[in-house]
């Protein structure tokens, strides 16, 4: 740093420190603004991550592998055959992929009709490997009666509570599942209700039935195959790299196995996350714009009060550029220091107050569903370097934007005018 810049910086810092009250008031606005930004971003990230994880656990995983065409047609014509599944298992064991994979579930998903003596209801039949599914899906934990499926189960079903009510059945009762088998024939299968779940998502509670994969394979005449493999990763940030690696490993089977990420597989969830993020950013942009206006005002006033001082320094040989730089530095130092404090306070408070979760229960009377996922009313913050970098970026942008005009004004000061009598 040149002596000149150091001098300008010293002037800036000393001016900020001298005008204590003004700096503190301005700084506080910045601290509040940035603190809020950091807090709400970490809570939003935490909320979204939880939301995405719930969504992908309920649904098709962070990444899902299907036969190309299954997503659109959802029939058994588009399924993963025995050798495809073998290739998928190999791929998941590949050293480039395995460390990122937290779990996976092989499923056979099909639309069908569930009927009892009372009613017939369209349902999504999900045939699962019980032990694997228990670790993967959220549904087994939503048990309200009976038990989840176990490996030895045959003609058993795990059914949503509302569906059970509509069919007027109880645990232990029998129901008939009807669907089209691999040959295109309508096939029926009798199963017994082993357990009942309640997820809070109406669509799921009215329309999802889990049965053992082995049962479905025999019933629908698709021995050895499945329609999808849902893969769970550490978090949503890992999706991009993991998708690319899976695509690479499965490249020679691209015509048989398609790799979809959760954004493609669950566009509604992705849209909801984007919408929520957007609203959050708009809100911060506005609060920070208000903060920036307050800072412009403060620095501008400070400049106009010190016209004479700027006249003196100009007379002593400072150039217009020096004067402008001095004011810019004043704004930048003020915003950086208070912004950094704000970031620190925001992170600290979030950690102190909410690391054990922020409970929103008081706001909801009912379970709240959005994009097919029930909100957990307790949100846990999530910290990430990128939030801090974003916040620092904001601090810098506010600093520059709010100092530009005052700095410009300072360079416009006419020395001879400024030096006239006070």
């Amino acid at each position: 740093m040149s002596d000149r810049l150091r001098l300008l910086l010293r002037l800036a810092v000393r001016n900020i420190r001298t005008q204590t009250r003004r700096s503190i008031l301005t700084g506080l606005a910045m601290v509040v603004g940035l603190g809020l930004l950091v807090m709400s971003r970490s809570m939003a990230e935490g909320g979204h991550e939880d939301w995405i994880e719930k969504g992908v656990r309920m649904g098709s995983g962070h990444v899902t592998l299907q036969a190309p065409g299954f997503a659109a047609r959802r029939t058994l014509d588009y399924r993963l055959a025995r050798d495809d599944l073998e290739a998928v298992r190999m791929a998941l064991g590949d050293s480039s992929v395995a460390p990122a994979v937290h779990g996976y579930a092989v499923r056979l998903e099909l639309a069908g009709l569930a009927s009892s003596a009372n009613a017939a209801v369209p349902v999504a039949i999900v045939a699962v490997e019980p032990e694997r599914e228990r670790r993967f899906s959220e549904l087994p934990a939503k048990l309200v009666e009976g038990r989840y499926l176990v490996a030895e189960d045959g003609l058993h079903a795990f059914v949503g509570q509302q569906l059970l009510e509509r069919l007027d059945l109880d645990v232990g009762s029998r129901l008939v599942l009807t669907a089209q088998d691999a040959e295109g024939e309508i096939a029926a299968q009798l199963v017994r209700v082993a357990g009942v779940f309640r997820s809070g998502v109406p669509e799921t509670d009215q329309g999802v039935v889990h049965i053992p994969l082995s049962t479905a394979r025999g019933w629908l005449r698709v021995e050895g195959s499945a329609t999808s493999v849902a893969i769970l990763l550490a978090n949503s940030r890992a999706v991009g790299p993991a998708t690319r690696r899976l695509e690479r490993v499965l490249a020679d089977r691209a015509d048989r196995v398609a790799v979809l990420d959760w954004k493609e597989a669950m566009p509604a969830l992705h849209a909801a996350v984007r919408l929520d993020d957007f609203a959050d950013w708009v809100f911060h942009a506005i609060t920070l714009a208000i903060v920036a206006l307050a800072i412009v005002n403060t620095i501008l006033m400070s400049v106009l009060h010190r016209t004479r001082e700027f006249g003196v320094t100009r007379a002593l040989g400072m150039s217009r550029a020096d004067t402008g730089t001095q004011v810019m530095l004043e704004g930048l130092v003020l915003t950086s220091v208070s912004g950094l404090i704000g970031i620190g306070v925001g992170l600290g408070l979030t950690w102190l107050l909410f690391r054990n979760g922020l409970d929103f229960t008081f706001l909801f009377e009912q379970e709240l569903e959005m994009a097919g996922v029930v909100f957990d009313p307790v949100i846990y913050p999530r910290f990430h370097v990128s939030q801090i970098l974003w916040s620092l970026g904001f601090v810098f942008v506010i600093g520059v934007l709010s100092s530009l005009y005052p700095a410009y004004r300072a360079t416009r000061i006419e020395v001879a005018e400024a030096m006239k009598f006070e």
Partner: protein
Amino acid sequence: MFRSPWWRIGWRNLGRNRRRTLFTTGGLALGFCAVVVMGGLNRGLIAEMIGNGTGILDGQLQVHDSEYLPERSLYETIGGREGTDVERLVAAVAADPFVSASTPRVFAGGLVSSGDGTVAAALIGIDPAREPAVSTILSTLDEGRLPLPGANELIVGREMARQLSFAAGDEAVLVAPAADGSMGNDLFTVAGVFDTGLAELDRGLALLPIGALQRLIALPESRIHEIAARVEDPWHAPEVAARLAGPIAGSETEAEVSAWTTFRPEMVSYATMAEGVEWMLLVIVFVIAIFGVANTMLMATFERRHEFALLLALGTTPGVIVRSVLAEAVVLSTVSLVAGAVITAPILVWWHLAPPDMSWLYGGTTLAGGLMRPILRVEYPWLMIVEAAVALFLTAVLAALYPAWRSARVPPADTLTGR
């Protein structure tokens, strides 16, 4: 009070440093605008959610047999096994001044097959003539035409049509458990395809004329499951439901009238939460604005300390000084409010009349079961406008309290001589 000279003095003092006034006013006006526009968006979001959630299919008001919910059993038709005088009941519901239309419906579950495959579907029997006045689902038809009353025709969702490779004019086989214990099945013609944007409906719903469905599941014409009705302002629905409950239930049948607030409680819950969020927003924005205003007022009063000292020396009481500074704050907030209104009004009106397409940002999604289209219309948040205006005044006055207090405590002698 309003004839007091302090208002005029406050106004002139603001004019002394126009730029400073401009920035402070700008901050407050921006805050006001932000809160009101966000409030409007929030209202729009709620209206969209409720509008779609109730408008696409459900209706704002439903009449069922008291035994029908939640099982939705095929047998629990209005009026029990004997059925009811459908026309009279539909008319009775429509008689309420807030109800703009009502229509009968029959529900069943079954399988829909084409040559290419079979899917399970919810089958709803509707009256093609009356349904459009109650729900919007028929207006989402994007291929073919509506089924003719009584004909063996149906319309299906876009997603189902894709899965079954249906086009208008194709044949479909419907199989459904019937009320007489048999399996009803019949050949139908696909009249058209609808596209609501809601995956659940587009994938799993087929609509057919009420008479055709009754034939398929062996129900006589007098037996229906539901009468759905439209109430223009959804928030009037609970009141209408309460009003209708007496006459409808009293008329021979054991019918039950419920509003959307009962059968879609999650939407009410969301609306309540959204209001809470609006309040948080209001408080946060104006708390931040307080710093800006306090700072400005502090500077402005500091510059005028000689003036205050002089006034005090001339015998003005501190109370008058406090009042004059507060009057300035009130004038400042009035100016800000006017500026805020001037920038906010066009945004609100534009966003209400010509909502922009936000599909670059998000595709369709659902909220509490209601479809959210990427075109979001802002609703006028009247209450929020009043609240924000009050908050703006409070902010300015609160922010001026400390500067006012300081101004009134300027030591006259020292300030006048000390320079």
